[in-house]
């Protein structure tokens, strides 16, 4: 039976992994011990966890599967790269075998293969997308909506992008650099940052580059965090009061200890499906710990909205090719099917958009 789409995913924490298995175990059984979970998880071959149905606001639906690559949440690091690539390849082979027409490479799965579908098994009629164009679209929409809600002048703002030389980071930079006063690009390797900076400057933007995050963070009015970190470990010291911070990392970039600034912190790159999503078995509430219904990551949603649109093509591929035009096009496709920016929220729940009201919640 051909499938419209498949999502290749992995869990961002052991807690999330345990929650998924608990749902599958059902209410009658005691939860799996942490020790057993950590011992067995990595041995599970990639497979479907649940079937997914997504409905367009135009009325029609598409069917797909959510495939977990079973990457142990504490083994996302570079030293496990080879074994994780093997897992992503196996998950991709599984998606192909299931007959998926389009596959979204969620979270780290596209990072591991650097968006290069040549690294994947022979795909036949299956196409792969990293999903990063819709991710960028949703991050940008979030920044614009939050600034509008808080009455901020984007033209006066300094924007800091952490992970700027990455696929998502560079896409965000290309979209937002023309709209802000100044962009500060951060990552660990200077050369790729300089290349991007050159490109943005030639478009007329004021750009600064630095590998020292702490040196720059006090200059930013708006921060986008899209570094590929294995765990929420980033500390942002000395943020400007009232800074807007969008954490779109998966796993999250910002350490829970980093949230005690007077800033508005929200999770970005997330969309809401107004037509609704159905999961069988119903693992939805544990896959997405969001205070709102029908939320999913942009990277996952991209394959689904392309399926709704009947455009089975590798819309996002490779690294560093995301342009404002493509972001606009993808945002329009998503909007046509009722996939819109998710309501603002962070780990503590909903985030009020108006200035200052978030301060109670982020504490």
């Amino acid at each position, binding site marked *: 039976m051909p499938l419209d789409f498949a999502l290749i995913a992995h869990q961002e924490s052991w807690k999330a992994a345990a929650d998924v298995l608990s749902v599958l175990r059902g209410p009658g059984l005691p939860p799996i011990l942490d020790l057993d979970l950590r011992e067995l998880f990595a041995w599970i071959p990639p497979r479907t*966890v649940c079937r997914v149905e997504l409905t367009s606001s135009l009325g029609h639906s598409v069917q797909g*599967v959510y495939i977990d690559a079973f990457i142990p949440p504490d083994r996302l690091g570079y030293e496990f790269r080879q074994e994780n690539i093997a897992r992503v390849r196996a998950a991709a082979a599984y998606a192909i075998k299931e007959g998926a027409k389009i596959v979204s490479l969620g979270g780290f799965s596209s990072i591991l293969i650097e968006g290069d579908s040549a690294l994947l098994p022979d795909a036949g009629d299956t196409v792969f997308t990293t999903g990063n164009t819709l991710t960028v679209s949703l991050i940008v929409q979030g920044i614009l909506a939050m600034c509008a809600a808080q009455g901020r002048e984007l033209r006066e703002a300094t924007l800091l992008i952490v992970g700027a030389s990455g696929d998502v980071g560079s896409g965000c930079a290309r979209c937002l650099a023309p709209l802000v006063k100044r962009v500060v690009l951060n990552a660990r390797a200077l050369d790729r940052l300089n290349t991007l900076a050159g490109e943005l400057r030639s478009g007329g933007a004021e750009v600064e580059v630095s590998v020292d995050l702490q040196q720059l963070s006090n200059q930013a009015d708006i921060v986008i965090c899209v570094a590929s970190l294995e765990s929420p470990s980033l500390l942002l010291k000395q943020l400007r009061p009232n800074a807007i911070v969008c954490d779109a990392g998966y796993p999250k970039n910002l350490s829970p200890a980093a949230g005690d600034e007077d800033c508005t912190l929200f999770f970005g790159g997330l969309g809401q499906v107004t037509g609704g999503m159905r999961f069988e078995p119903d693992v939805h509430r544990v896959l997405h710990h969001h205070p709102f219904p029908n939320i999913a990551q942009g990277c996952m949603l991209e394959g689904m909205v392309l399926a709704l649109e009947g455009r089975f093509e590798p819309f996002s591929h490779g690294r560093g090719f995301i342009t404002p035009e493509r972001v606009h096009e993808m945002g329009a496709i998503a909007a046509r099917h009722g996939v819109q920016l998710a309501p603002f929220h962070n780990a503590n729940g909903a985030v009020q958009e108006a200035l200052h009201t978030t301060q109670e919640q982020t504490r």
Partner: protein
Amino acid sequence: MELVTKLNPDSAQATLDPTAPIWQDVLAQAVTGELIAVLNYTSLAGICEDPEEIAEALEHAEGEQGHARAFTAEGKKLGIDVPSNVNAKYWKRLRASFLRCVEERDFIACLIVQEVMLESFAVASYRRVGEVAPGSLGRTFAAIAAEEEDHIDHSIAILRAERERDRAAFDEKLHGLHLEVMTTIAEMFAREDKDGHCELCHGACVKQSLPVVGLTMGELRGVAMQHYLKTLDLLGVPGEVTLMWVAQLPL
């Protein structure tokens, strides 16, 4: 490192390598598993009608007997006697499950229990033991793992065809057997024996000592579960179904 009895210079007496008692327990499980397979294939021959199938089942029984002999011989090389006990707690339960299928003259159920469940675990754990066990002991485990794998292929083809005839009925039968047999296997592979001694290890349970020879119980049950899931994939059972089955085992 070739593992043989060493001469102790102080006492001038032959003493066992300190890992020998661990291999003794590992081999006891392997030999008992092989003897159970001998019994199972012999019982299976009794319910086959096609002479070719009968011959094949008896040939398998013969092969498993050879495996048991090979493992026993490896014990000898280490200077140990390898005990076996087909009535040891878990093995007895596994044999009883198989016999129920025989009583019902259910050839397909027999294949599922022996080839999908028991052999899956044999292949995966032998292969892993084969990687760490020294010298000819390791080679024997690896070679037998390969042989077991070979004869599984044929049964998989039969089972796949059977599933194609009626998926729902096949999956229901498979799930029933999974609940019974895999629960026993999961308890056998659990970190500790919840209801006491396995009745096969010569002293305290070998599970705790496995790290001395480069094995862990966690890894063995990991590879075994992985092999089982992959075998179910080959049968065509949907991944989300088998994942749920495995998640629901006693862990």
